């Protein structure tokens, strides 16, 4: 059957079972929007206020649901506005397919109106970026893009389609998703690039060696990273391995939720802003089993002196992560969940000597007490953060209990990530409250997305830790730059309460913890989302 390229794009989205896309229209992509109009009963399009918001929303949707997010934008500025969002998804291995349209093929490279080389721009921040110049290539490319985004180590993929390719007609035949690997481009890739599309097969000899290392170690420690969150069922397996064999564990920021915070073996988050117990354990262990981590500098500090007394074993799905930042004694390439199950089978009857201890209760700072109040009132909520002090207070203090509960821009650290991601999460998960914890600096970067929340009646509660400053940078200026607070004080910013109300949302201000508790509990009960502006002392530090 001959269909227009634009129609083929929408048919391919349906093949993938996509029912929600995030985006922003423009002239180059108008044909695709015309086809989406005809499919509006099957595919819901969420219009954001800015393409960056759409990118973060598709990313947040993917992180909250485990499904591949889809984001559409037009050529030129539409495409470049996605860039921060693509990079955020890339750094945290979130599966998102970005579809942009470009100018007509005949105009490519002539600096036409709204033309930009987005495939080139996005090359370093995607698993792959494609330029499609004819309708005939569309179906194969889009199928490949989806396979790639979710296969192996997940991540963003970009497909840029020239305008003419959306107009012209090409042969299209429906192909169920299960058969994509057997035909066309994906089939060719499977023959030679299987690993990037599917989970690599783990070598059992590698696992046996790890089991031996464990059995001869005195102070073993597991470090769980984002890979444990991304791999379906891996967190469950990790919990079983830790409990059955008494192996203590720490997590990275991206790994929070892999183990429940109240588990006796979970020592907290490791790294620069981590817990004392976690960092002490990393310093003292003699065997560090790092699962699905990439040894970010925020975790290791100086990579050369990281975990000085330990043999490090790295388990990762991405071969290129091995020995990238930290030299390892042994490694296993494979899916976190599968490797942990294989390991568990090798460890029958093994029990680690008890050696690590959790931190006792510590005194919480005022902002941390706000976070604890959120946990008390909405323990199961999906928590979405922006980037800064509030993010670190949240990661240190909130007791996460399940994988995917925390959605944060850990690797890229993109301020302005939160509200868009919360929109995506809100659309992806139905029955759980979605709470967006942010700072005034991050919030005002993408606050126009309040329009999106209002337009679709999305109940998101944004808790703004409002210290009228860029707290994390300011804190560094206090500690290392003689208190020369330059360009980090934001006094005179908008009145966030009025701002929320201007969008038809609820806007409240909490001057103290008691007021906050009353407001949050009221807002959780009511049907309407909005913001709570929590006045925070700018000298609070993390």
């Amino acid at each position, binding site marked *: 059957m001959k269909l227009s390229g634009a129609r083929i794009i929408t048919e391919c989205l349906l093949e993938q079972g996509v029912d929600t896309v995030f985006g922003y229209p423009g002239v180059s992509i108008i044909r695709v929007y015309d086809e989406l109009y005809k499919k509006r009963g099957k595919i819901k399009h969420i219009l954001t206020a800015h393409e960056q918001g759409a990118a973060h929303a598709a990313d947040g949707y993917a992180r909250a649901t485990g499904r591949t997010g889809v984001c559409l934008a037009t050529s030129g500025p539409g495409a470049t506005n996605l860039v921060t969002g693509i990079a955020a998804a890339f750094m945290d291995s979130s599966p998102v397919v970005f579809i942009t349209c470009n100018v007509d093929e005949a105009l490519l490279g002539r600096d036409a109106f709204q033309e930009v080389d987005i*495939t*080139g721009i996005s*090359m*370093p921040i995607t*698993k*792959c970026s494609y*330029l499609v110049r004819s309708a005939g290539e569309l179906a194969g490319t889009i199928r490949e893009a989806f396979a*790639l985004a979710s296969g192996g180590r997940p991540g963003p993929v970009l497909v840029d389609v020239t305008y003419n390719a959306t107009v012209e007609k090409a042969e299209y035949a429906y192909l169920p998703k299960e058969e994509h690997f057997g035909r066309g481009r994906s089939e060719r*890739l499977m023959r*030679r*690039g*299987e*690993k*990037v599309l599917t989970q*690599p*097969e783990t070598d059992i000899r590698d696992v046996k060696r790890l089991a031996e290392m464990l059995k001869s170690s005195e102070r073993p420690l597991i470090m769980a990273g984002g890979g444990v969150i991304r791999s379906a069922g891996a967190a469950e397996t990790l919990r079983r391995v830790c409990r059955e064999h008494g192996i203590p564990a720490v997590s990275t920021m991206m790994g929070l939720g892999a183990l429940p915070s109240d588990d006796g073996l979970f020592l907290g988050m490791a790294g620069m802003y981590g817990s004392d117990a976690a960092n002490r354990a990393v310093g003292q262990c003699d065997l560090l089993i790092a699962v699905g981590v990439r040894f970010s500098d925020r975790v290791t500090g100086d990579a*050369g002196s990281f975990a000085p007394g330990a043999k490090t074993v790295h388990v990762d799905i*991405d*071969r*290129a992560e*091995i*020995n*990238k930042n930290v*030299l390892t004694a042994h490694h296993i*390439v494979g899916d976190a969940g599968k490797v942990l199950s294989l390991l568990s089978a090798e460890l029958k009857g093994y029990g680690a000597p008890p050696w690590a201890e959790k931190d006792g209760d510590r005194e919480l700072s005022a902002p941390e007490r706000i976070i604890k109040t959120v946990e008390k009132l909405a323990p199961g909520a999906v928590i979405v953060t922006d980037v800064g002090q509030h993010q670190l207070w949240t990661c240190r203090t909130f007791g996460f209990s399940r994988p995917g509960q925390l959605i944060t821009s850990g690797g890229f650290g993109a301020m302005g990530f939160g509200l868009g991601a919360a929109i995506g999460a809100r659309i992806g998960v139905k029955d759980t409250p979605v709470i967006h914890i942010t700072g005034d600096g991050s919030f005002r970067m993408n606050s126009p997305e309040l329009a999106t929340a209002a337009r679709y009646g999305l109940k998101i509660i944004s808790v703004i830790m409002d210290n009228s400053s860029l707290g994390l940078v300011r804190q560094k200026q206090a500690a290392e730059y003689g208190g020369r607070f330059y360009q980090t004080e934001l006094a005179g910013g908008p009145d966030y309460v009025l701002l929320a109300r201007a969008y038809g949302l609820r806007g409240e201000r909490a001057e103290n913890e008691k007021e906050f508790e009353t407001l949050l509990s009221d807002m959780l009960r009511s049907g309407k989302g909005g913001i709570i502006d929590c006045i925070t002392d700018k000298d609070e530090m993390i």
Partner: protein
Amino acid sequence: MSSSAKLTRQTLSVLVENSAGVLSQVTRLFSRKGYNIESLAVGTTDDARVSRITVILKGTDRMAEQIAAQLNKLMPVISVQILTGKKAIYREFVMLKVKADGKDARDEIMQIVNVFRAAIVDISRSSLMIAITGDEEKTEAFIKLMSDFGLIEIARTGLIAMERGDGSIRDLSKDRAEYELGKSI
């Protein structure tokens, strides 16, 4: 990255799908890591859809392994091979135009050309164009000798390399690469 590790010449052979932008995808990885490419040679293979890229860089073994692992992640990359020292044969092709004013200079150049088994491919009243093939040592030595006469211009293909013996770069499928690339560092 330990700075004490020895910097040596690292050769990477990369088999890639012939698609738009593949060369920039490959070279980008080097610049992103801050590695300098010393030489780069690209050409098609027996299969017209597949090209072979040979990249030479000065670096540690770990740098080469890291780049190889990153290259393997690129979709158009079919296989990657790290070639080391004596395990491989290296060649490059050089064309140079050199001043040859008068008979004496011309005779002397022709003698050197004969010794090096190079070839004179063009001749004019006051210059010669010479083509030479060889490994880096040979071509460098030849260029050095020629520079005494005055080089007008020079063009080099950059080194290409191939492993000795029966093996083929095609044996290094992405799956097998895991065990070929620095499993026990």
